[in-house]
């Protein structure tokens, strides 16, 4: 007579469920650690995933032919831009890049200078990023003014005090009245509005609806008193030319700056892929870090489970003795209690998934509404699988010791337990 599985699986389930039902309140509190841990995993992953998709989409919006030439050493993380190399890109670099003898396959190159200040029209003022650039900058964004015009090479040469504004800037400063030819003040200097952009939204890091564009020469000479650029935006004629353009720019500027050792570059050329990779790596690292923290919460939750199961086993000593006296094997008892703790943690994991998913959805909904960003909620199935399996594993690992303790109880002593 073989009685390896003395009690059929279904009945073990029933017994375990009844055990949990009898102590609902306590069961719920016990799994709190698990719930929070799994919820954190889901939340972090779903927001992280959505952010990643958003940003990668944005990167795509600029197109695969664009490269950014930036001052400073090759950025490997969160460095402060304002170091001594920050001023390494100047007019001679722009001219050198634009020279087809130096750089092959270049479609266009335009410098960008940025600072933050207020623009004022009458009683209205807005505090925002002010960009200095050249006439072909709008081509990078694949956009042209819906009213008026973009400034020209003449304006660059003459350092004209003209400005092109985005749709939301126009809304806020001028409302429904005409903006063209009106005067706005930037840092005490008067600029004439010559163009208004159509609404386009976010392209890479620039919100075109909130754009304020003036000729870079004007910005450098009159507003900032500097000679360097924040960056030079370049575009190759085709995607296949991108590596060649990149290589040529490096060669050209290194020669210009007298750099022989690439380690000593005072600039870098970043393609869209470079940005994408950098971002992906950073976000993965962050994700993993946060998941580790959440895993610690699961661990702590597991210790809590073990404690409570031990208490539960002690409380039910008499019951264990009784079950043994009517024919439960050690294995039956062990399986009963192990299943209870696994069910507990599994339910905790499920709860965590629902809460994490729900909160994640809410968070992204809020970001969309108040942050002006086009986030999409991605339900991270991989995180769900991870979270639930982790919680089951925790249930098994931390439930094992109490279950074994229960199984070892001597029936007579157990029955005598008060």
């Amino acid at each position: 007579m073989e009685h390896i599985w003395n009690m059929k699986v279904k009945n073990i389930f029933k017994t375990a469920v009844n055990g949990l039902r009898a102590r609902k309140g306590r069961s719920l509190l016990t799994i709190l650690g698990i719930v929070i841990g799994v919820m954190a995993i889901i939340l972090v992953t779903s927001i992280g995933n959505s952010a990643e998709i958003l940003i990668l989409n944005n990167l795509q919006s600029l197109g695969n032919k664009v490269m950014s030439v930036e001052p400073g050493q090759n950025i490997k993380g969160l460095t402060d831009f304002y170091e001594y190399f920050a001023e390494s890109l100047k007019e001679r670099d722009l001219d050198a890049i634009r020279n087809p003898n130096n750089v092959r396959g270049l479609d266009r190159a335009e410098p960008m200078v940025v600072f933050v200040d207020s623009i004022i029209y009458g009683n209205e003022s807005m505090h925002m990023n002010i960009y200095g650039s050249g006439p072909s900058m709008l081509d990078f964004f694949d956009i042209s003014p819906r009213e008026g015009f973009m400034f020209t090479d003449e304006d660059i040469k003459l350092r004209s005090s003209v400005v092109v504004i985005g749709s939301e800037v126009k809304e806020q400063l001028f409302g429904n009245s005409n903006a063209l030819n009106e005067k706005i003040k930037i840092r005490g200097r008067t600029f004439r509005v010559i163009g208004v952009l159509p609404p386009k939204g976010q392209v890479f890091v620039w919100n075109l609806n909130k754009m304020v564009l003036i000729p870079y020469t004007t910005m450098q000479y009159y507003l900032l008193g500097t000679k360097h650029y924040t960056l030079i935006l370049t575009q190759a004629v085709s995607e296949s030319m991108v590596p060649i353009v990149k290589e040529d720019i490096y060669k050209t500027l290194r020669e210009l700056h007298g750099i022989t050792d690439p380690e000593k570059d005072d600039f870098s050329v970043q393609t869209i892929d470079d940005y994408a990779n950098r971002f992906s790596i950073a976000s993965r690292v962050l994700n993993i870090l946060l998941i580790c923290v959440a895993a610690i919460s699961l661990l702590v939750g597991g210790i809590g489970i073990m404690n409570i199961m031990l208490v539960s086993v002690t409380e039910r000593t008499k019951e264990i003795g009784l079950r043994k006296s009517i024919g439960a094997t050690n294995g039956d008892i062990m399986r009963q209690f192990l299943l209870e703790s696994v069910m507990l943690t599994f339910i905790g994991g499920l709860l965590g998934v629902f809460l994490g998913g729900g909160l994640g959805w809410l968070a992204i909904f809020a970001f969309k509404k108040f942050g002006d960003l086009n986030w999409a909620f991605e339900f991270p199935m991989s995180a769900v699988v991870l979270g639930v399996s982790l919680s089951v594993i925790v249930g098994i690992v931390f439930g094992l010791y109490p279950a074994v303790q229960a199984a070892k109880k001597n029936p007579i002593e157990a029955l005598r337990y008060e």
Partner: protein
Amino acid sequence: MEKPIIDVKHLYKTYHAGEVKTPVLHDVNFSINDGEFVAITGPSGAGKSTLLNILGFLDKETSGIYRFEGKKMDDYTEDEIAHVRNKEIGFIFQAFNLLPHTSVFKNVRLPLFYSDTPEKEWNHRVIEAIKSVGLENRINFDPSKLSGGERQRVAIARALINDPKVIFADEPTGNLDSKSGQNVMEILQDLNRKKGHTIILITHEMYTAEYAQRVISIKDGRVNSDRKIEHQREANHEFMSSIENLPIEAPLGVPTGVSV
């Protein structure tokens, strides 16, 4: 001569608590045949419960041979012991030992969970067992809502559910008033006479012991005497006749399709 269902030879039991040894049973010898109703008596601490626990497969002897149905207890594996506890033996305790917050129906059903009886027979068996102790009208009650006598009857129904060969009763009337106690003894006699169960009863009261056919008296861990009862006390059959044909309630938490 039929083989005895229980055969005990030179049984010794000593408890070890660290360094301290407490001898409890010395050289106990007797045998019990199928269908006997035996009472084991003696003063408190004489070793009766210890003996019953060994006979009932809840404890192991220190030395000596205990044969159950001809097989030595030492030869039983852990799983086989569990099987004996489940199928061959029914235990009734002084303190009832029912599962709290669990209906009468589910309490009686419990041993079936650990058996290999097909599930479709369960409901029928449980109800028959409950009927045999007259608790049809309490089928969904929680033990806390039952009297002492009713609780012991639930325990008896539970002990019967797998149709055991031997029923062990450890001071079954110890926590009951005399009326309930008599009802319980009536049920036990009935089980012995009409259904042929072997019954082994522990009690420290001679009065209760006289419901049995034979009394083994234990003193200081040894068999003091082993004699047949000349005038077996007859339980009046008031109780058993009163519980025939009681109306039965549908058990809660049981799948439909149960013919009641």
